[in-house]
C-alpha cells in the first residue's frame, strides 16, 4: 500500500483504501469483520484494488453531499500565511462564507487575532470553458502574491477545469519560478472521488510534495506533529505534561510549521480518517514514525494513545504519572455524570473514525448507543497498522453497535435510521441532518469544535454538553408538533433506509 508522491494528483481513497459510502448489513462487528484490515467480505465486488473489497449499495435517489474541493478549501484557507486560489467558476468558491465563519471562530478559540480567511477564485466564465483558464489562473496567482505576500500559494482545481483539461501543473510551475515561493497545485475535482475525504489526502499530498523539508537538518526530538481539525488547542497543554511540543497542522498552521514536519519525533492524530495519508507518508518518505495506537477517546483509548507517544519519544515515566493524575481527576466526575445520564439513548452520525471515537466516549458515560451512522468507511488506513483499526477497537473495548450504517449524509435515510432506534438525542458533525432530527423532536449536539470529545477531559465535556442539550428538548418537541416533512407517506412508512438501493440490484 505504498504511497506515491511522484504524481501530482493523489490516488483517491476508493483506489487506495477501498473506501465505501453505503453499507447497511447490520452490526459494527460485522463491518469490522468484513474489513478486517484487508480481508473483505469475500464477494469481491468492491472497487478497491489495494484495500479490502466490500460490497457497496448504490441508491438511485441521492441528496447533495460535499466534495473533495470543499475539504481542500477548508484546509488550505486555514493555513495562516498561505493563500488559496480556487481555479473554478464562482460556484465552487461559494463555500467561502461558511468557511470564514469556521475560520474566525477557530481563531477566537485558539486565542489568535480574528480575521477573514484568504481565498481567491479565478472566476471562470463561459468564455474560459472554451478557450481554457490557464492564463486567468496564472494572473490570479500573481495577484494573490501581490496582494498578500504569502509564503505559499495553493491551487484547488475543480470539476470544470478537470473537464476542460487545463494544464494546472505546468501553469503552477511557471509562476512558482517567477515569484519564488511554492505554488502547490491540489487536484481535487469533485467528480473524481465519491467521498469528500479524498480532499484531505489531496491537500496533504501537495504539502508533502512541495512544502515539507526534504532534507531536514536536525531532528527535533521533543516535537510531535498533530494532525487536527478546527477546534480548541487541547494538545499543547497535554503534551507539555510529557515534556513535548505540539506541532499542530494543518489548521491554523504556518508554512514554517509545515516545513518542519519532517524534523518531528512522531506524528499522531485524533482522527484517522483525516490523518491516514499524512502520517503514513511522513513515515514512509521522511522517516517520521506514525503513532500506532487507537484514537484518544475514553480512558482505554487515551491511555493507549499516550503510551504509544511515550514509547516513541522515550517519555514513559512522566506519561504514566500524567495518566494516573488524570484518572484520579476525571474518574470521580465521570461517575457523577454517569449517574445523571443514566437510562439515556444516543445516536451518533458523523465522519467514520470520529464516530468510532465518539461512540466510545458515550459508552464511557453509560449511555446506550444502539445505532451509528458513518458518512463513509475506510476498510483500512494507509499505513495498514492493525493498532489503528478504529472500528475494531470500538467493538472490542465497548461492545457491538447493533445498527451500524454507512451512508453519505442523506437526509431522507436519516428519517428511517432514527425510526430504528428512537434515541433521546443525536451527536453529530456536519450540517444537513440535524434539522431533520429537530422536526422529529430530537435535539442534536453539534460537534463543531473537533477537540471537544477527546482525551480524558473530553469525556467530561461530552457529558456536560449532553445535559445541556437535553434542555433543548422542549423546543424540538414543540417544533415536531407543528412541522411537516417533504417525504411521501410511503417513504415515511418504509423501514429500510436503503430500500431503493436494494430494489435496484434485486
Amino acid at each position: 500500500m505504498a504511497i506515491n508522491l511522484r504524481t501530482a494528483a493523489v490516488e483517491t481513497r476508493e483506489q487506495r483504501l477501498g473506501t465505501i459510502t453505503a453499507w447497511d448489513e447490520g452490526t459494527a462487528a460485522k463491518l469490522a469483520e468484513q474489513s478486517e484490515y484487508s480481508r473483505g467480505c469475500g464477494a469481491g465486488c468492491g472497487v478497491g484494488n489495494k484495500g479490502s473489497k466490500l460490497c457497496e449499495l448504490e441508491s438511485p435517489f441521492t441528496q447533495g453531499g460535499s466534495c473533495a474541493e470543499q475539504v481542500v478549501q477548508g484546509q488550505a484557507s486555514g493555513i495562516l500565511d498561505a493563500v488559496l486560489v480556487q481555479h473554478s467558476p464562482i460556484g465552487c468558491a461559494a463555500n467561502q462564507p461558511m468557511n470564514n465563519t469556521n475560520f474566525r471562530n477557530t481563531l477566537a478559540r485558539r486565542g489568535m487575532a480574528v480575521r477573514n480567511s484568504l481565498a481567491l477564485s479565478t472566476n471562470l466564465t463561459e468564455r474560459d470553458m472554451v478557450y481554457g483558464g490557464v492564463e486567468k489562473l496564472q494572473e490570479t496567482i500573481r495577484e494573490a502574491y501581490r496582494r498578500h505576500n504569502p509564503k505559499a500559494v495553493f491551487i484547488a482545481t475543480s470539476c470544470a477545469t478537470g473537464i476542460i483539461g487545463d494544464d494546472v501543473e505546468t501553469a503552477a510551475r511557471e509562476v512558482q519560478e517567477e515569484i519564488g515561493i511554492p505554488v502547490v497545485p491540489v487536484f481535487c475535482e469533485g467528480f473524481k472521488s465519491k467521498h469528500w475525504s479524498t480532499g484531505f489526502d489531496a491537500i496533504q499530498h501537495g504539502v508533502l510534495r512541495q512544502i515539507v523539508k526534504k532534507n531536514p537538518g536536525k531532528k527535533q526530538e521533543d516535537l510531535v506533529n498533530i494532525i487536527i481539525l478546527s477546534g480548541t488547542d487541547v494538545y499543547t497543554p497535554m503534551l507539555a505534561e510529557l515534556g513535548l511540543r505540539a506541532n499542530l497542522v494543518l489548521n491554523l498552521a504556518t508554512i514554517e510549521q509545515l516545513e518542519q514536519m519532517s524534523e518531528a519525533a512522531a506524528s499522531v492524530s485524533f482522527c484517522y480518517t483525516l490523518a491516514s495519508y499524512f502520517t503514513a507518508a511522513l513515515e514512509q518518505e521522511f522517516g517520521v514514525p506514525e503513532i500506532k495506537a487507537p484514537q484518544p477517546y475514553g480512558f482505554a483509548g487515551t491511555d493507549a494513545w499516550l503510551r504509544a507517544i511515550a514509547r516513541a519519544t522515550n517519555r514513559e515515566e512522566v506519561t504514566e504519572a500524567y495518566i494516573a493524575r488524570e484518572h484520579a481527576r476525571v474518574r470521580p466526575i465521570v461517575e457523577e455524570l454517569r449517574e445523571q445520564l443514566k437510562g439515556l439513548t444516543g445516536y451518533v452520525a458523523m465522519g467514520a473514525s470520529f464516530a468510532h471515537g465518539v461512540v466510545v466516549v458515550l459508552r464511557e458515560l453509560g449511555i446506550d448507543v444502539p445505532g451509528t451512522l458513518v458518512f463513509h468507511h475506510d476498510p483500512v488506513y494507509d499505513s495498514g497498522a492493525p493498532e489503528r483499526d478504529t472500528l475494531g477497537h470500538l467493538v472490542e473495548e465497548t461492545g457491538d453497535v447493533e445498527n451500524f450504517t454507512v451512508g453519505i449524509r442523506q437526509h431522507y435515510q436519516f428519517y428511517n435510521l432514527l425510526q430504528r432506534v428512537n434515541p433521546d438525542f443525536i451527536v453529530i458533525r456536519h450540517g444537513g441532518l440535524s434539522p431533520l432530527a429537530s422536526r422529529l423532536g430530537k435535539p442534536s449536539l453539534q460537534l463543531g469544535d473537533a477537540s471537544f470529545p477527546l482525551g480524558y477531559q473530553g469525556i467530561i465535556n461530552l457529558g456536560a454538553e449532553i445535559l445541556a442539550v437535553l434542555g433543548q428538548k422542549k423546543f424540538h418537541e414543540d417544533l415536531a408538533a407543528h412541522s411537516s416533512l417533504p417525504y411521501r407517506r410511503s417513504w415515511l412508512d418504509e423501514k429500510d433506509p436503503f430500500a431503493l438501493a436494494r430494489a435496484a440490484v434485486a
Partner: protein
Amino acid sequence: MVVALKERGDGLPGAAEQSGPIEQLRYACSMGAMQTAAAIPRVIPITHCGPGCSDKQHNALTAANGYQGGGWGGGGVAPSSNATQREVIFGGTDRLEELIEATLKILDADLFVVVTGCIPDLVGDDVGSVVRGFQSRGAPVVYAETGGFRGNNFTGHEIVARAIIDQFVGAYDGEREPGLVNLWSLLPYQNTFWRGDLGEIKRLLEGIGLRVNLLFGPDSGGIAEWKAIPRAQFNLVLSPWLGLETAAHLQEKYGQPFLHIPLIPVGAKAAGEVLREIAAFAGVSERAEAFIAAEERTYYTYIEAFSEFYSQYRWGLPARFAIAADAAYALALSKFAVRQLGLLPARLIVTDNPPGEYRDAIAAEFRALDHDTEGTVEFLEDSYLIHQQIRSAAFGHKPPLILGSTWERDLAKELKGVLMEIAFPASYEVVLTRSNVGYRGAITLLERIYSTTVSRTA
C-alpha cells in the same frame, strides 16, 4: 482527461466579456438559483451537478447568510445527482432520469425544478429531453440550465423563473384581472431580509388596494400564484435590474404590461412616491392616499420619538456612510440614508454584477440620490478592491457607517466604524422576519443602525 465541449445552440459570449479574480465572494453561481425554486412554497429543486455544488450554494445562501434555514424543500433536502467520473465520461442523462424517477417516488411537492451545474452543461447532457419525457407523463417537473460558469445566482434566478413560466405556467389567452399584480423584486435568500421585505411590500401593495402574486416566501400562495401570473393586470419590477428580463418575457408571451420602478422604497418619503406611482399606473389612486396618510401618521410618531435621541445623543453619530451591496439594496438604503437620515455618501458600490446594458441607468439613479446630493456608483465584485475603495473614502472625523457584509468586519474595526451587515454574506446575523423596507422596515433599520452605534463602545 479532456472531454470535448459540445456545441451549444445559444452561441458564445463575445471576446469582450472578461472577468477578473474574485476574493471573498458576494454571490453564488447560477445554480444558486436552486434556492429560487426552494423559495416557492412546496417547490423542490433537483440539482444535477457534482457532489459538492448543491451543498456549497445553499450553505452560502441560507446558512452563512443570516442563518435563514434552507426551506422545506431546499438545503439538504434537495435531490442531487452527485455526478461522478461515469457521468463525466459517458454523460449524465441516464443518471438524471433515474434520479427524477426516484424523486417522484420519495418526495411530495407541487413542482420540481431541475437546475444544472457545470458538469452536465460542459459534457452536453440533453437535460431538456429527459425532463420533457417526464412532462409528457404529466409529472410536475421543469428544467433550467444554470451551469455555474454561465453567471451568478441573479441571472440564474431569471433562468429559473422563465423555466417555470414557459414549462409549467404555459399559454394563456383568458381575461386579465384588474388590481392583480405580479411582483418581481429582491432575490430570495441572497438578500438576507427577503422574507420580511417581501411581506412588507405585499402589505403596502394590498394597502393601496391591489392583490399580489408575491411568488416567493412564506407570504406567497405557492404555485397557485405562479399559475395565476398571466391573469395579472401587470408586472411590477421593483428593483434596478433584476426581474426586467422576466417582465419583458411576460410582455412578449402574454401581452402583459410592466411597470419598472428601480427603487425599493425605504422610509416614508420613498414609500409615498413609489406607492403613488404604482397606484397611478394601476388606477387605484384614491385608496392609496388614505393608506399613505395612515402609514405616515404612525411612521412619524416613531420618528418624533427617535428625534429626542438623534438630536441629543452626546457621544457621536455617524455622518457619512459607505455601502457595498447588490444594486437593489445599495440604491434603496442609500436613498433612505441620504434623504431621511441626513447622512452623506462616502462610497457607493454595487456588487451583483448587473449586465452591461443596465449599468448606465443604475448609475443615473445613484446620481440623483436627492435634489442636492449626487452619488457616484462603482461596480465591483472583488472584496479586495471594494475594501481598498472604502478605505480611501473620506468619512470626515465621525465614525464611518459601513453598510456591507461580514467581509467588512475587519475593515470596520480598522476604520473604527459602525458595521451593519445588510448584504450577503451576513454571517453575524440571525434573520427571520426582520425587514428593512417600507414604513415598518425603515424603522427597524433605523433602530438597528443606532443600536449598533451606541453599543459600539459597550
